[in-house]
């Protein structure tokens, strides 16, 4: 094993040690994602649905789909999704 094989990238370390409580499954995330997308688009600074924010920081697939839904809603409603997307990525 070489020296390089002993080190993880900073991004990998961050991903491996992310706190993921309160627990929310991918299935629950999907169930809540429509309500969540409307909430975040309307109130980007919301403090509700904490577990959704935690899950989306920890699950890239769910995060992509949530960001996509927010963007799509904004487009269909003539809104700017920037604040909501910034919150999702924070």
């Amino acid at each position, binding site marked *: 094993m070489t020296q390089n094989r*002993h080190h*993880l990238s900073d991004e990998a370390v961050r991903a491996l*040690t992310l706190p993921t409580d309160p627990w929310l499954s991918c299935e629950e995330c999907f169930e809540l994602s429509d309500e969540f997308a409307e909430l975040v688009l309307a109130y980007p600074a919301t403090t*509700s*649905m*904490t577990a959704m924010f935690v899950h989306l920081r920890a699950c890239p697939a769910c995060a992509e*789909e949530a960001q996509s*839904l927010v963007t799509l809603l904004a487009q269909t409603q003539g809104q700017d999704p920037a604040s909501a997307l910034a919150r999702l990525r924070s």
Partner: protein
Amino acid sequence: MGAEGDGIALAGSRPSAEGAQATPVDRVTEQNRAIERDWVGELGSSGAVRESALRDLHRLLVSAARHQVWRMRPQLPHLGPGPLEDVAQCAADDALTILLTKLQTFEGRSRFTTWAYKFAILQTANEVRRQAWSSREVELRDEDGGTTLRGPEAVAEAADLADAVRRAMRVALTSYQRRIALALLVDEVPIDVLAERLGTTRGALYKTLHVARSRLRTHLMASGHLPPATTPRGTR
């Protein structure tokens, strides 16, 4: 279904597959009509009313699927507009089938159209990731390959944590947890792709990852490499 046109172009100024462009006002007007509609009632009825609702719902799902394909198109650089449109149409078809089986679970916590869009987005994203990885091997390795260090002084602190994480992975995780964590978080295999290859579900893999992360954090807090936990409030 699958061949009729898209009533709404949903990706900025991107032309729809038919070449027409919907203005932002068109999109908002169409959306407002869709929001006010009694979708559940019409889809639960019969005859021409139901058929009309199905056609219009499918059109919305195709719009959402195209939106998702457009977002993820860099993952399928070898596909031209025609095959990408096929991906969107197939995903919309699948989404419609799934949505109809779950129609009675719609509780009105969001607009029906928002609820419907999420099915198309999920199906499309899964299909794009599946196709993007279709010719790639997924290696479930038990050791991390790491990255090249930028210099011992510059990365000393980060390397210390990285080494601690690596040691924690050896002692705090099972072999299966380690392999799943490495595949998903280091090799960045999409979770639904890995689930399909392993014959499991996205939810099961995420649960494994959740437990692995918790074990790592507990171990690293005990060793002083991470600060004590602060648990966010709330359950949703």
